[in-house]
């Protein structure tokens, strides 16, 4: 049982990491990144690391995606309309 969980968690994490990289639009990427943070949290729990999972859940699913969204919103106001 533990084996199956570990294999599933590792596979999910690898899949989500690839999905984050291949999502080119930063706003969508923030959402996928949030899912990747969640899958990392699940993997850490299956690896018997509750301390790390706790920090990862708060940082990876809330903090970093929120910062990415806010940075995109801030950048949109400064982008040149005509393009470089």
């Amino acid at each position, binding site marked *: 049982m533990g084996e199956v969980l570990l294999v599933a968690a590792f596979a999910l994490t690898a899949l989500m990491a690839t999905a984050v990289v291949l999502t080119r639009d930063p706003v969508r990427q923030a959402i996928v990144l949030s899912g990747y943070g969640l899958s990392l949290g699940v993997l850490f729990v299956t690896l018997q690391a*509750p301390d790390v999972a706790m920090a990862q859940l*708060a940082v990876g699913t809330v*903090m970093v995606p929120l910062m990415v969204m806010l940075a995109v919103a801030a950048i949109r*106001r400064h982008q040149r309309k005509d393009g470089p």
Partner: protein
Amino acid sequence: MNAVRGLRLCLLAAGSLGFAVLFTLAVLDLPPFGGNFHPYGDRAVRASLLRGTPNTVSSVNFDQRSLDTLGEELILVASALGAVVLLRAVRREEEDEPARHHLGPADVFDALRVTGYPLLPVTVLVGVYIVAHGQLSPGGGFQGGVVLGTALHLLYLTGDYPALARIRPVPLFEVGETAAAAVFVVLALAFAGQVIASNVAVGVEVGCAFVLVLAKFFEQALLIRVPA
């Protein structure tokens, strides 16, 4: 431009191939995954139990490797400070009043309001619990700090940015962050092994750093305008 991009991809392919080969060779020489050979871990567990800290991760962080943690702590302070400085309002920019960003009931789902407000005190309480019980159960300053730092932003989900701006006066959090960092430096250098006190200092520091950085990002995204 396309030639440059093609060259770049070729370079990446060559580098990745080399890395993949070397990394695989290196990994095959590691002890197998899930094996029983953990000399450092066994010693750390013994030392931690000898010092009476049941959560060995906290013990490693604040007792056995507290000098390393001090270094990482200073990286955290430095990068949070850098982000805050980079995101300040520069001369030709103007700031909006936070009150202009209060959304009416029509703009936010009722479900978000109903869950957002009651969850705030619960989340803060959980954060404090995680910091305070760090030496006994999974948790500690770093984990509790990030929970506390993100908890306040539940208010933003309810559409009430002015309330969020009111409960996090930026100067207070700046003072809190630097004071907690100073306390942790003293703890790590002079009183290493005070796990509970270190947890509290790190919790306050991480929480303040996250709130500050997010506050600056919110200012950039919502309030700052460039006059035409």
